[in-house]
């Protein structure tokens, strides 16, 4: 479904990604972790071309991102993405947030878009908030809406960029619950997260990054059992202490 082939990226002189290679098969849930500044968010943003890269290629559902003929907006409309800061559109009601891209990008009628949107809103347990605005919702609620918004486009896979990092601790679980449910339904997912509980529960594989490189790319059993690199061992020992 997603192939990342030898991707390298520089900001000016500074190399942020070095020859990253991995793939995500249909139905797999990949957790990407690593210390801050390791390039994990940049890597995941390369998957839907929000970040350009200078070398290598990313192929999503058989479509190469480095091919200049690729219709990037169309490709992105098929890849759902959830952001650390939710990024709901603040001037639109929750319903409008859920329907605007369906109408403007997919060309659905507003009635159809509304049906799809409200169904998904029900699924994340927020039907009562349909008429409210993002600023009137808690962080956890906003992130659940953001997941529903991404799903409203019927994506072939979902990207999560630290979806719980900006949340108050008591709201983390309501978001993770939605993600776990999604994983169990067979959604292909690539998640940048430090929620190791989530990784243990649903990950097919865990990728560990450091200094722009993929250092480990292993099954979760192998990763949590005995990470090969010292850096990953150190990282795990630090975040699993509590």
């Amino acid at each position, binding site marked *: 479904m997603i192939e990342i082939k030898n991707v390298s990226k520089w900001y000016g002189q500074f190399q942020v990604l070095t020859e990253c290679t991995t793939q995500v098969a249909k139905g797999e849930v990949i957790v990407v972790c690593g210390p801050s500044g390791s390039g994990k968010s940049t890597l995941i943003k390369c998957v*839907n071309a929000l970040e350009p890269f200078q070398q290598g290629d990313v192929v999503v559902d058989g479509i190469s991102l480095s091919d200049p003929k690729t219709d990037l*907006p169309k490709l992105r409309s098929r*890849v759902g993405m959830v952001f650390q800061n939710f*990024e709901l*559109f603040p*001037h639109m009601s929750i319903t409008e947030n859920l329907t605007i*891209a369906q109408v403007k990008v997919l060309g659905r009628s507003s009635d159809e878009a509304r049906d799809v949107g409200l169904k998904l809103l029900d699924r994340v347990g927020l039907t009562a908030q349909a008429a409210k605005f993002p600023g009137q919702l808690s962080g956890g609620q906003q992130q659940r809406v953001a997941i529903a918004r*991404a799903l409203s486009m019927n994506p072939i896979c979902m990207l999560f960029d630290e979806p719980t990092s900006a949340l108050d601790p008591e709201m983390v679980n309501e978001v993770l619950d939605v993600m776990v449910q999604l994983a169990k339904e067979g959604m292909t997912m690539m998640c940048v997260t430090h929620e190791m509980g989530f990784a243990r529960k649903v990950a097919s594989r865990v990728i560990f990054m450091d200094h722009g490189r993929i250092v480990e790319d292993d099954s979760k059993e192998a990763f949590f059992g005995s990470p090969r690199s010292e850096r990953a061992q150190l990282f795990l020992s630090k975040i699993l202490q509590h």
Partner: protein
Amino acid sequence: MNYHWNWGIFFDQVQNGDETYLAWLISALGWTVAVSITAWIMALVLGAIIGTLRTVPHRGISFFANAWVELFRNIPLLVQMFLWFFVVPELLPKDLALWVKQDMPAKEFVTAAICLGLFTSSRIAEQTRAGIQSLPRGQTNAGLAMGFTRAQVYRYVLLPMAFRIIVPPLTSELMNIFKNSSVAFAIGVLELTFVSRQMQEDTSQGIEVYAAVTLLYFICAFAANRGMALVEKRVQVPGYIAGAH
């Protein structure tokens, strides 16, 4: 103070004319409003476009937009009035120049409105740019990730918020445009400042004349302010706190 008060002056007949000074002032107010509103519409449309172009990641486009802004905001408004009135027509092709100088209807009004509109557009462009750039980068990414084209991101995501954010500075701009329209007297638009000078010369009742004109400008600017306050209230986003992100 040895001043001869005469508040009745407004009801006197204009020299060599059959209307009262009051009617003269009202017509002048009409020209002030006409110049201001025409310039405002131009400034708003052009400012929004140029300000947006300044944020587009394309060198040629942003150079053009930057040049626009710098051109119109680095020259005094009065000098710009003279440039548009005396210099620009000379630079036009011969036939067009002749038409502008001799046959163009309401020549002074058109020139003043264009000049004030362009001058203000550079200021609105700056505010639009600042409004767009004050939005978190993630908003653009979120729009793109939904499959919007860049133009759609501007249309549906960035501009609606940017304009809400810049309503307060736009309010000042609309008030400014009424006040700046007074510069149009210099090229002979029969607006409030022009007429008040004429009236003062005719009657020597400077205090009454300028009191009236001051009041009329104040009413214009204040009405603009109240009008924009209504707009601000109307477009308010429930629960949104600027900068809290």
